[in-house]
């Protein structure tokens, strides 16, 4: 079983779910694939389907319309999976406070259980890599 766990650590496939973001974090995620940061060194790659995914990367402050879809995608993801909230919005609502904004469903952990929080607006690519490495080591 430990061998399989090691394989899981060395090949995390990331599904990027944009839950009403401002696209700032989404653009920063694409930086991870470029030659400068090259996330493929750790065996990670972006996949298109939540069925293939090991990491569910949520960006954005989750509004009330997308919250059921977030739950649905979480249920569709093959377990075991890591859920990461990227950006200040997903972690703590950032500037979209629920007391001011009537249409937000609250921070991401109100909707689904979150394993990693990556704050920043947007977080640096180094911060994202560090968070993912920390998550791998905790597995």
């Amino acid at each position, binding site marked *: 079983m430990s061998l399989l766990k090691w*394989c*899981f650590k*060395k090949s995390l496939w990331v599904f990027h779910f944009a839950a009403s973001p401002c696209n700032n974090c989404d653009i920063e995620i694409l930086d991870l694939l470029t030659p400068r940061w*090259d996330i493929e060194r750790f*065996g990670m790659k972006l996949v298109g*389907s939540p069925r*293939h995914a*090991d990491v569910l990367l949520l960006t954005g402050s989750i509004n009330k319309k997308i919250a059921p879809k977030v739950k649905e995608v979480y249920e569709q993801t*093959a377990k075991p999976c890591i859920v990461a909230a990227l950006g200040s919005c997903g972690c703590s609502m950032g500037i979209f406070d629920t007391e001011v904004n009537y249409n937000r469903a609250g921070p991401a952990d109100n909707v689904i259980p979150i394993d990693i929080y990556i704050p920043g607006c947007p977080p640096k690519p180094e911060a994202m890599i560090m968070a993912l490495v920390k998550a791998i080591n905790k597995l």
Partner: protein
Amino acid sequence: MMLILKNLFYFLIFPGLLFLTIAGCLLHFIDRKITALVQSRIGPPWYQGFADFFKLLYKETLVPKNANTFLFFLAPLISFSGTLLASIILLNILFGFYQSFIGDVIVIIYLLIFPSLGIILAGSASSNPIASVGASRESKLMLGYELCLLISFAIVILKNNSLFINSIISNQPVIYSVSGLIAFLTSILCIHAKLGFVPFDIAEAETELIAGPFIEYSGPPLALFYLSKFILFLFLPIFLVTMFWYSANIIFFILKFLIIITIMILIKNTNPRLRIDQAVKFFWIKLFVLNVISLILALIGKYYNILWL
């Protein structure tokens, strides 16, 4: 008893399942590493293929609610068993463990249809609109490339006057003639389409169809699909080298194999994806005509006994 053990060894261990798995996973690493180098990245570590495959075995299997469960699980098995059988037959003959039998080329060509068939079945069985679009594209692409591939193999069979792999590999390689060279080059493009590599990855187009027929698959069935793809990427170039460019020296054989692999990976990394109509037109109007011309050349060469034609 010893015979059974020996056969099991041939099928499961040396040129069989274990060897093919290890070699296929390593080849997947080479593929991704060269891709990374072309894009001036560092790329994955050497165990990436193994890690991907065993991780998928560790994951949960999900079945869509409206899917046909039997066909949903049959599809990866068909795809995997076809690939495995074809490669075991070829490698056992090449290593000399088994004798060549009448029409073994035809058996291998038939078995090569199974992976594509499995993909079409997977797309149709998983009750997802995107997957069924992928399945229909795969079947159209199959209509495109199969004809060209068959004519290229027909040229080899015609020039060697034989359906045995043993006699094909003992004759002069076909590639040292005009028609053979054309057939070799077109067949590289055909196996490119069969593997679903980039100019022809229309069926699983990552940016438009997400993963095409594989979209609903997770866990071990997906791992089987991936493994059959890795093994196919190992097996098809070996088959081409055997048919067109065989050399008994194993080092030269591996070098020729690596040349084909490198050409394919470079084509993959320097071309954008075609539309399905462009791909079918490419195969039917350009490659098919080219192949028919080279077939006619081969027939003329055979009739007048000109070896270089």
